[in-house]
């Protein structure tokens, strides 16, 4: 359920997030798409993991 932009934390219902989406090619997510909290993000040489206190962790697609 994505409500918030993972890159800028703005509402997906407002404004244009095309630039955010393009930037995501070279950036991990920073904001939880469900609650907008800043996530704890660890970038690794071959991937990343991101965790939100409320919504758990996820990893980059393999």
């Amino acid at each position, binding site marked *: 359920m994505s409500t918030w932009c993972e*890159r800028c934390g703005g509402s997906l219902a407002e404004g244009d997030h095309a630039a955010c989406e393009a930037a995501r090619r*070279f*950036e991990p997510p920073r*904001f939880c798409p469900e609650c907008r909290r800043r996530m*704890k*993000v660890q*970038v*690794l*040489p071959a991937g990343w993991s991101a965790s939100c206190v409320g919504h758990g962790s996820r990893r980059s697609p393999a």
Partner: protein
Amino acid sequence: MPEILDLARNQVLERGVGLDEEGVLAVLRLPDEHISGALQLAHEVRMRWCGPEVEVEGIVSLKTGGCPEDCHFCSQSGLFTSPVRSVWLDIPSLVEAAKQTAATGATEFCIVAAVRGPDERLMKQMREGVAAIKAAVDIQVAASLGMLSQSQVDELVEMGVHRYNHNLETCRSYFANVVTTHTWEERWDTLRMVRDSGMEVCCGGILGLGESIEQRAEFAAQLAALDPHEVPLNFLNPRPGTPLGDRPVVDGKDALRAIAAFRLAMPRTILRYAGGREITLGDLGTRDGLLGGINAVIVGNYLTTLGRPAEEDLALLDDLKMPVKALSATL
């Protein structure tokens, strides 16, 4: 052919003597139609004085974010409203990152921490982490932990850290525009201690911070005077929330001029493509750089941003018939 390239051919290619500040500036000012000539010459210089091997490195952030310093380009400063949160990497994940890096054929693994300088907690994490990596992975370990005391330098040597990264970031005359919480000279002091310790010195910076072309030349000359083993060249990737978050990225042609110019200033150094190449030069930029003086790459992801998949860079090296430097050659 422009006069500066003739001069560089005689002086840098034939004799291995780098261009001075004035010469670097002339290369940075070359008209568009001479950029490919400059890159070609820089490539010849690299082949002649460094050889065809490319040094491949992976990096990882051991401690991310929450840095007390205010480097205006950095998303890890705790003083800006950057979305990057503070996080520590545990030792098993650090070893896993070293394994992932070694699996690409890389010979260098650099452990980085976002700090002014190490505290006891970080040094302890380094002691344990470096020992665990050395026990499990065949790779050279480098570190980048900010400003060091003499005893910390000694300790890193004892741990077996063979190279230390500490970037000057930009030229001396522009530094205070970019960082106010410490000085260029403080950075220089750490570099001096590192060099005297016998560790290899890795020192570069970021282009596109708002410095002038003249200041870019000044920076190349100052690096050449330091004569580091390796120079990582970054291009600003403007980070949201930082004071430089709205700056434009470096123009691709200016980036290529800079690559050629830095190589012509430092014929023997390991000149490494670091962050921002994907943003500044796009997918073709890596090829142009490797054919224009660059002889080392960071593969995979960076500290807080992502890179191209390592396989793409490795396939490119294969395509260019540039062998990856082997571990045996670095020992």
